């Protein structure tokens, strides 16, 4: 199979899947089988590109010679994009299985539309991952926003509508006002939009305007949820939990930080940023976001909201890695895309399983739940350890690399990372601890009628006897929890994949 054909297949499969899902809409079993199989096939197609990328032969595919004058619509799979694509495509089939269980147990409406938009979102994410120039990246970035909009507003309630406005307003507003401006300026200045190792801006942009251009790019990628443009992410939690899990912990938010990393590496070039110090301010903003978001996460009693703020904090790690522009920091940032994705999706899977099975949405309601749902809560513990960055989970390595990078820059940044890990222990670990070691509340029946969050519109929320989550949810969340552990032992492969980014 030729390489460019491989890229085309990987991109085309989710679209075909979306069409088939739409056709099979009337028969849920067929529909979900199609989704799952498409997900697996897409993952295989993406993984098939891996050997070529590792060997340094970057697969290319050009669809349109001139989408804009002098700018083709084209894809080139480089290491960073390979990693992001593997993460997104790899977690898609797992999430499909989980979503099938979740939506049925939760009696959601419009399930066909849900799966169609889901497949289109993955298509857009892969387009972002493989984009060979800024225009292609921007195209798929907007497609991703639009494809996820119906998922965020899935319930079509006034609350969902409000969240949808914030979502679209911030994501589209920043991308149109800032990102497009930055891209247009880049083309005007450099005469090209291609991603070139070493960057394209050197000698074309005045040193004094580099920080401003970087700011336009970073805040233009609103999906990275860097403060103060983070409000859309907690709002997006109104979506069904599988959406929060795959899109708002993996595909969408990682699209933002991935784009920032890619722009830093391939548009600015590490040397240019290091020489001019244009990214110094970004280290400060990223550090502020890391700490503030962690502090806010403390205050959240709603489980999904707490996870959302934790995501904002963790995304800022990756931005920090990009801003520090040392080789270790870039590698750490890239690795963190993978480790945080697997860890956070585990946590969201668990949160969704708790909502559907135990009808509990608040952290304070979880006392003693570990006895009823031991596997779910064990997975939650593993995911938490990975997010905090403790062995034996993958998260420890990405934090380690980021800390090494920070040590080269300034001891203050190391302090920020350590403090944030402590905060992580504070807001994540109590959850499994309460579940396993606290006694269940005495008269839980009174829980009914209050404290149920937005993700919950059941009338039958009595504290009924329940056991573990539905197998269709339990298996996926166990798989991703195991993934967290595996990443601890195999993360050197990820680092090896990314190494070409920092060794010109």
């Amino acid at each position: 199979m030729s390489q460019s054909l491989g890229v085309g297949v990987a991109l085309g499969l989710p679209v075909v899947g979306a069409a088939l899902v739409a056709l099979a809409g009337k028969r849920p079993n067929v529909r979900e089988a199609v989704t799952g199989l498409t997900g697996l096939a897409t993952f295989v197609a993406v993984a098939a590109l891996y050997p070529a990328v590792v060997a340094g032969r970057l697969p290319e595919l050009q669809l349109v010679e001139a989408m804009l004058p002098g700018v083709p619509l084209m894809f080139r799979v480089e290491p960073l994009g390979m990693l992001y694509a593997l993460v997104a495509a790899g977690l898609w089939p797992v999430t499909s299985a989980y979503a099938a269980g979740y939506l049925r147990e939760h009696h959601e409406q419009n399930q066909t539309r849900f799966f169609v938009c889901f497949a289109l979102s993955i298509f857009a994410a892969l387009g972002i991952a493989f984009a060979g120039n800024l225009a292609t990246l921007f195209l798929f970035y907007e497609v991703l926003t639009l494809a996820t909009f119906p998922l965020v507003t899935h319930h079509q309630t006034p609350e969902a509508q409000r969240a949808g406005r914030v979502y679209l307003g911030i994501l589209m507003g920043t991308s149109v006002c800032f990102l497009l401006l930055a891209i247009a300026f880049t083309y005007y200045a450099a005469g090209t939009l291609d991603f070139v190792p070493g960057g394209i801006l050197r000698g074309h942009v005045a040193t004094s305007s580099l920080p401003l251009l970087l700011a336009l790019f970073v805040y233009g990628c609103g999906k990275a949820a860097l403060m103060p443009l983070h409000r859309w992410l907690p709002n997006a939690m109104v979506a069904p939990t599988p959406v929060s899990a795959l899109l708002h912990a993996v595909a969408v938010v990682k699209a933002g930080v991935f784009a920032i990393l890619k722009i830093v590496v391939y548009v600015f070039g590490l040397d240019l940023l290091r020489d001019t110090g244009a990214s110094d301010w970004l280290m400060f903003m990223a550090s502020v976001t890391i700490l503030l978001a962690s502090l806010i996460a403390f205050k959240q009693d709603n489980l999904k909201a707490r996870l959302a703020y934790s995501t904002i904090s963790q995304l800022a790690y990756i931005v920090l890695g990009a801003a520090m522009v040392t080789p270790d920091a870039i590698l750490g940032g890239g690795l963190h895309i993978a480790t945080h994705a697997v860890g956070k999706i585990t946590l969201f899977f668990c949160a969704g399983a708790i909502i559907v099975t135990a009808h509990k949405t608040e952290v304070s309601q979880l006392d003693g739940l570990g006895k009823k749902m031991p596997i779910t809560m064990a997975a939650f513990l593993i995911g938490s350890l990975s997010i905090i960055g403790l062995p034996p989970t993958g998260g420890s390595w990405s934090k380690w690399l980021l800390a090494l990078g920070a040590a080269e820059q300034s001891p203050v940044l190391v302090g920020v990372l350590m403090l944030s890990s402590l905060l992580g222990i504070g807001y994540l670990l109590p959850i499994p601890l309460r579940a396993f070691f606290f006694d269940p509340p005495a008269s839980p029946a009174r829980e009914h009628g209050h404290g149920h969050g937005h993700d919950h519109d059941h009338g039958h929320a009595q504290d009924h006897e329940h056991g573990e989550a539905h197998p269709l949810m339990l298996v996926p969340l166990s798989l991703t929890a195991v993934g967290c552990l595996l990443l601890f032992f195999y993360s050197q492969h990820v680092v090896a994949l990314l190494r070409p980014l920092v060794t010109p």
Partner: protein
Amino acid sequence: MSEHLPILMVLVPLLSAPLVVFIKHRKASRVIATLACALSACAAWTLALQMSSAVSYPLGGWRPAIGIELRVDFAGAYVAAIVSTIATFAISLGTRGTREDVVGREMFFYAAFLMCVAGLMGMVVTGDAFNVFVFLEISSLSTYTLVAMGKERRALTAALNYLFLGTLGGTFVLIGIGLMYQMTGTLNAAAVSARIREVEHLRTTHVAFAFLAVGLGIKLAVFPLHQWLPGAYSQAPHAVSSFLAGTATKVMYFQLIRVVVSFFGVAYVFDTLHFGDFLLPLSLVAMFAGSLSAIFQPSLRRLLAYSSIGQVGYLTLALSLGTEAGLNAGLLHLGAHAVTKTALFLIAAAFIAQVGDDRLDRLSGLGKRYPLLSLGFVLGGLSLIGVPGTVGFVSKWALLEAVLAGGRPWLAFLILASSMLAVVYVFRVVEVLYFRAPLANAPPLARERADWGSWVPAGLLVLVSVGLGVWSELPSEYVATAAQSLFGGAR
């Protein structure tokens, strides 16, 4: 045969108009009108695609400057092709619901429509200043008639409003042409531009340009001369508002370009008169005020009409740069917006035919009922915003590059900020379509399904606007050639 193409695309609709009235047959008149527009479009496309340089056609065999010359350059052929094509799409609009505004008056309606097409096409192809005025009046008078044929009584007020302002504009154009003739002694474009050098320091020449610019500005709906537009667009019969939205202001814009570039010359207009400094603030205000007003409109067609005022702001902004890149962006946006806005008006027509009236809240919950129409509206709306992958993005990109090349990044930011307003008004409609429950007390829908005639023309235009957003090479290259030959290194 092929050398007669320039005159054919005017003559065919012009002569079909009396034919429609004579035949006096309801069905036949529609067929004749559609055929005439389609033939005119064929002529325009043939010319546009086969021409290698500007085409000059001496009317009646008289030498230019003595006789009347028709002169079609790349830009003219491009605009002519757009106008005639959109006329074909608009007139072929096929539901009973959208035609019932003109029941009993079909032949007059179609005759006036054909006159309007002939007038607009004539303005585009002629190389003679007085001809511009004649064709301007032909198209204007027929437009007033067409607007007055709207279903509601408010259409009469709208038509009268348009008549007053339009006549004012026409008169200004005439005065401008008269002064120009006084100064140069000729009406032929090429001859005028050759002689204007000698008189360009005289105040009468300045005044001639001012009259022409303001007169065309009224017809182009440049802010604050746009008062006629919302009423006319929202009250006219659907076929007419779809047609006008895509063509009327565009032809006037092209005419303004020609006055600036072909008659008076870029150097004079921008360096001596500083026309750009005058046009730029007005364009900026139009971009924001038009789009902002669109957000608060209670009816779908008024929303689209105010959006047009904002979009005209982008057109004049591109012209105000006074560069070839700006001209290129303006011509691209002319085409992009023509296709997009016509598609949206056609979709609006299909919706209104189903629910019976124009108010936005009557569209509540129709997203589920008419999924294809609604999807078409979303895609067209995205093109209006300028989301990548649509033709609106291609023209916005050209505009951004033109502005940046002029060294004004803050202007680029304002352009993008104003397109955020487009996001708001487009998604306001999207929310109504998809989020609101259908009205409880709504009268029943006209039909269960929208019949195919009402959405196929719109669907085709939506496909074009999305397709050209990805395969943008064809329009981009053609327009680049057009802008280059029009501008000719003038500055």
